[in-house]
């Protein structure tokens, strides 16, 4: 396996594994497991936790100056893996229903993931060879991209927060 892009293969392997387990539940129910059921809730919670890890851990690692927690490159790879697998699990959680705020949250998830893929492309495509200002160019491009990617992520988590509270109020905590 080539060294570059390995994190995408890891993400693909995890997605395949999640899909296989989900398929078992699908065939048992002969339908997409309901979002409010055990499987639906479980996969939604796990996916959301992965998305929280995506949003926080890489940034927090970059605050450190030593490598005791691993290299930033490794954490960036981790960010990309969780940033793909988490949203995929949240997609399965929806049971392919995209009504109201839940649908908006899923839409924001897709937009943020797409934005992240753009960022990955920019990160690898913009040259950073010294001499022709490559590093500075790269930094400017990524900074510009960051001003879009971050607010989108904040919007996503705001919508997700309201979605979780609303579902707790109208469904999970109902007796």
């Amino acid at each position, binding site marked *: 396996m080539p060294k570059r892009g390995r994190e995408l293969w890891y993400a693909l392997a995890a997605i395949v594994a999640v899909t296989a387990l989900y398929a078992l539940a699908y065939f048992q129910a002969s339908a997409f497991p309901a979002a409010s059921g055990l499987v639906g809730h479980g996969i939604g919670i796990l996916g959301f936790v992965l998305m929280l890890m995506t949003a926080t851990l890489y940034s927090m690692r970059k605050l450190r100056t030593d490598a005791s927690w691993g290299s930033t490159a490794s954490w960036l790879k981790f960010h990309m893996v969780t940033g793909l697998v988490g949203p995929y699990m949240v997609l399965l959680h929806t049971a392919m229903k995209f009504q*109201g705020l839940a649908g908006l949250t899923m839409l924001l998830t897709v937009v943020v993931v797409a934005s992240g893929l753009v960022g990955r492309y920019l990160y690898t495509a913009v040259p950073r060879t010294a001499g022709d200002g490559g590093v500075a160019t790269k930094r400017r491009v990524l900074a510009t991209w960051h001003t879009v990617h*971050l607010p989108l*992520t*904040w919007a996503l*988590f705001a919508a997700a927060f309201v979605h979780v509270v609303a579902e707790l*109020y*109208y469904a999970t905590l109902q*007796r």
Partner: protein
Amino acid sequence: MTKRPGFVSATGIVVAVVLLLGILTWDLVRGPALFSPGPLNAEATGPALGGVTDHAQLGDDCGACHPAPSSSATMADRCLHCHEAIGAEIAAKKGIHGRLAGAQSSPSCRGCHPEHHGANGALTSLDGATFAHDLTGFSLRGHQETAKGAKFACTDCHPHGYTTFDQSICSDCHAAINAGFMSRHEASYGKDCLACHDGSGGANVDHSKFSFKLTGKHAAVACKGCHSGAGSLQDFQNTPQDCYSCHAKDDEHDGAYGRQCGDCHTPADWGEATFDHAVFPLDHGSEERKATCQTCHPTDPKSYTCYGCHEHTTGNVLNEHEGKSLAELADCIKCHPGGRKGGD
């Protein structure tokens, strides 16, 4: 200066706050439908309940079904607020809902009745494999496979939904199995199958009203055990009531004691036979070695021998009766009717 994590962004926070305000505004202006997972059912199937003929007419009144979690009311309370007839069923512990509620520790309507599955979404969702059909008052014990050997599906009896059942389905299916039987059966008993049949294999018939009482082990026999092939009332009434018609195959005496089994036996158990053995005391023998029927009647009940027991060997008997031959000593009770040595 303490560095902040990269995900902390002033623009991001502003965007999040704007979005939250937007959601709040939408909720205040348009109602909480924003949080609905799907449209409500819009099929009107009966008279208005709670002022609406279908759930979709509730519109944005989410509280009609979803009480605040802090409230003491449950969702089932909200359902029964409109569906009063169901509430009456549950309170009276009658009907399918009364029985179902009684079988659950905390009754929940939504376990079987989902919503938010669209205007035409099913309002009843039952897993045929796990649903305890006995709770409806009709057991599926006798309805596991169809006449063609296929597994029964719910729609075989409920083609138009679970809440309806047309008894003509019973007639149609059973007539296909045995048209003559069904014709006679319905002529005698009518078409209200559920008046007598609860699916357990028999019929709710008070047999104590008839001349043949179902006592002892007769009470546990299935109807067809005695009324094999009976279809009409006359068939049932013509069922033989003598023991031998059913129990000829059980006769261990091969007819040697006649056919009036009831002279000695009761429906409690074959082994509890009573017999007036006046010709000879039945307590003959010792406590340690009690005589059985076969001891004295090894071949058939009409003949006997005393030579099967301990001291009654031919040698001993000949010694005790000098001058007599064995042929003259064959009928012992002639001189010993009480089974005693002295002839008493």
